[in-house]
């Protein structure tokens, strides 16, 4: 199992949810991959790249083949790909002992220049998932049809969790002062020797300076969005991919 890696330039994307009929990732990745090749970035897919829970076979076949072609092209130009396992593709853990272990990891500890960066999907810090992964998985499958009504349902869920925590902060039931469990977890991980912690999972792109030092960045999603984290030249930036090129998002 490879968890310690070194890369000068790495782009991190997450939550592509390939196979989900509402995923727009395969339409937008083509120009993004060209950008990565031109700028000599390697690539990390930080969890939920493939959506096993809400996939439909025809969508999975079509989208995955398109993206696999793009990734093959990326590799042909010398690009390296890392795949971190998330909760919608957690079944991939079962192949961690096969030759695919070269490409799959539960998380990465990245050394990039002077920076030490933790890259992890982050679902294990989701209190709901941690309390009962099976219930969470069952509800994720059941929530599939809701995507038809509102494809950004994941962001609504994330916002609801955040609101609940804000209310708790106001009531005084917590003293940590973080807006989300992910921020709190990122602070804890950063405290043991990381300059930045990159999560996905919440679908909500954000970059937050942590109180104890270090930065928490969420790479957002490519189910409906197109945000990514760019790690290069001793900096970690949250960026939005547009067909005309990337735009840096403010903290």
């Amino acid at each position: 199992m490879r968890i310690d890696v070194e890369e000068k330039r790495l782009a991190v994307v997450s939550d592509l949810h390939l196979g989900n009929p509402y995923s727009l990732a395969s339409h937008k990745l083509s120009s993004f991959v060209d950008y990565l090749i031109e700028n000599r970035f390697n690539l990390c897919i930080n969890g939920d790249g493939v959506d096993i829970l809400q996939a439909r076979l025809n969508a999975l076949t079509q989208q995955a083949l398109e993206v696999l072609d793009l990734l093959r092209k990326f590799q042909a130009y010398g690009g390296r790909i890392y795949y971190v396992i998330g909760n919608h593709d957690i079944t991939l853990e079962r192949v961690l002992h096969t030759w695919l272990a070269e490409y799959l990891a539960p998380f990465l500890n990245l050394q990039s220049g002077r920076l030490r960066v933790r890259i992890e999907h982050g679902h294990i810090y989701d209190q709901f998932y941690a309390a009962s992964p099976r219930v969470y998985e069952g509800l994720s499958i059941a929530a599939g049809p809701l995507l038809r009504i509102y494809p950004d349902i994941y962001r609504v869920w994330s916002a609801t969790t955040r609101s609940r925590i804000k209310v708790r902060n106001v009531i005084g039931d917590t003293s940590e002062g973080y807006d989300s469990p992910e921020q709190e977890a990122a602070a804890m991980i950063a405290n043991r020797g990381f300059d930045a912690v990159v999560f996905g999972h919440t679908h909500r792109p954000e970059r937050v300076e942590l109180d104890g030092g270090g930065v928490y960045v969420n790479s957002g999603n490519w189910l409906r969005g197109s945000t990514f984290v760019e790690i290069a030249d001793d900096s970690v930036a949250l960026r939005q991919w547009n067909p005309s090129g990337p735009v840096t998002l403010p903290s």
Partner: protein
Amino acid sequence: MKLPRVGSSRSNDVSRLASRVDAEQTHADGECIVAEGSLGQEMFIVADGRVRIAKSSSAGSVTLGYVERGDFFGEMSLLESVPRAASAFAVGETRVVVIDPGTLLLKVRRDPTLALEMLKKLSTRLRVANARLVDVISQTERQEPTVPVWEPFDDQQSSHAD
């Protein structure tokens, strides 16, 4: 600071408690963090800086290696309650996170990747130690070829003896 209610069934109370039990120490350059032979049950994670591990020998103090940022030391005393096998000194100003036996499980529950990192690191250290042992045995055998340093285990002899 408001403390979580003890015995509460709320799932995140434990995680809050765990996040609060991370004690830290800051050491100046050259300062001894732990001394060889001393009693102590804490493990340390290097959050900033660097740590030199040294052991006394008949030839004086020997540097065994360096622990870099993000790496840990002192785990033998934490896991086995044995005296410190070596001394640790700060190299430059160094900040360490202190984990004691009472908070290790809470820490791992809150930050489970720490356990995987520890296992991987211990596996690497064991592999390196095995390789060094083989080197030492090979050197010893070259120097004293008539005296075997170790006897290979013989299944047949063992069963006859039984």
